[in-house]
């Protein structure tokens, strides 16, 4: 049975126009499209870092505004494109979210590190001493420390080399499967979308041009726009 987690009803925000979209429990939705099509803005709407100018967003059947914002954001974890770690150690970053809700449990740190494949001795490392890939892993673990039910990922591998992409992707797949997470991810990488997602949303010029199941949607696009995009990719 598919339970609807998010429902966007004719949402407008900056470039986004008339976005209507449903996201169901356990779905892994990949949002892709050319730059400037509003992919990141769409992601920010889900955990209320931004609000629509018009239209409505329902979360679990209720208008999203009815939820308390800090708890909503805790529950709908967002990993930004850049890791933006707080100045201090890896451990301080991991504790940040749970500490806000007085919910930090020291014994969970090992599990968190396992999710992102980082050794335990990294905990005391200064974040300035980490590589790009390691920073992104810490950023992911920091979001996971909040135990979100839904994970929003904004091109989490865009700044990484192929080797790092592959290994983070594998970690993500294991994580999604083991924690039964609902995932909404923005990516510009169609192969990655096929590897990680089971539903695709193609955005162009602020509108949803096509949506469908993955990998079919990318392998057999129905619209001219998506055909062009996949051919030029």
């Amino acid at each position, binding site marked *: 049975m598919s339970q609807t987690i998010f429902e966007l009803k004719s949402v407008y925000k900056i470039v986004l126009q008339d976005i209507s979209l449903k996201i169901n429990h356990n779905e892994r939705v990949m949002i892709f499209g050319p730059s400037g099509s509003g992919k990141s803005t769409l992601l920010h709407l889900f*955990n*209320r*870092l*931004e*609000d629509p100018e018009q239209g409505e967003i329902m979360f679990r059947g209720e208008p999203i505004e009815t939820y308390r*914002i*800090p*708890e909503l*954001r*805790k529950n709908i*974890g*967002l990993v*930004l494109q*850049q890791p*933006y*770690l*707080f*100045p201090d150690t890896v451990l301080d970053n991991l504790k*940040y*979210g749970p500490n*806000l*809700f007085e919910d930090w449990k020291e014994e969970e740190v090992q599990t968190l590190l396992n999710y992102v494949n980082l050794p335990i001795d990294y905990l005391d490392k200064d974040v300035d001493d980490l590589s790009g890939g390691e920073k992104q892993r810490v*950023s992911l673990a*920091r*979001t996971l420390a*909040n135990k979100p039910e839904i994970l929003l990922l904004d091109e989490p591998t865009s700044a990484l080399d192929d080797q790092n992409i592959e290994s983070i992707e594998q970690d993500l797949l294991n994580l999604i499967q083991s924690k039964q997470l609902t995932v909404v991810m923005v990516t510009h990488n169609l192969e990655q979308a096929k590897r990680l997602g089971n539903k695709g949303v193609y955005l162009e010029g602020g509108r949803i041009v096509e949506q469908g199941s993955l990998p079919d949607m990318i392998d057999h696009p129905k619209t001219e726009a998506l055909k062009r995009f996949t051919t030029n990719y």
Partner: protein
Amino acid sequence: MERDVSNFSLLVLIVFVMVPFTISYFYQLGLKKDIMWSSIRGALQLFLIGLILTYLFNLRPIVGIPIMLSVMITIATFHARNKGKELPNVFITILTGLIVIEIFVLALWLGFDMVSFTPEEVIPMSGMVIGNSMVAMGLSLERMKSEFGTNQGKILAALSLGATPRQASHITVKRTLNAALIPNIDQLKTIGLVQLPGMMTGLILGGIEPIVAIKYQLVISISIFSSVSISAIIVSLVMYRFFFNQNMQLVDLEQLQK
């Protein structure tokens, strides 16, 4: 008789003005007009203030002191506000801040008999406190804007993890406070070693015993230190709110300017 600088001696000050003027002339810096104008304007301003002070000093303290303090606080507010014009409520925040600081300092000075309630003592000393607070508030505003600009990503990350605006801007506020307080701490450390502070120099020139001058200098230096700290705290703790909307979302700085 009190020591005075003769009018002739004052005229000789032109020699000092001629130094930058000549440099500007030879190196074609294009500053000749500015140098002359600022020297004349500065001199006229000071004489005008001299006349006003003479007038105010002759009024009853209970009348003269509030008038002068109000004028100083108003001018200082307008000046400091320029550093953060685009932020809402900046004028009222600075104005309230300066009034609070002045009342606090005055209460301590008068309450513990450090300063007597005469225009000769209250006005110049308050001027120093208000002036330094004005600079501190302006700097804190500027610093806060730039910190919000450079740390936008981190603030966004904190918000996305469930932080409230207060929690998300903690690092930004901390850095703003640090930036405002460190120069003052440094200044206090080297006070009297690098240069004799202005007020102490003035008192010594006026014939006051150095040890008495130092006591006054301590009163003013510590008062300035404290008021600068309060200024930075007021600006940081009040103004950060205006970088967020009621839905705990970061407001675009460019949007604020509109």
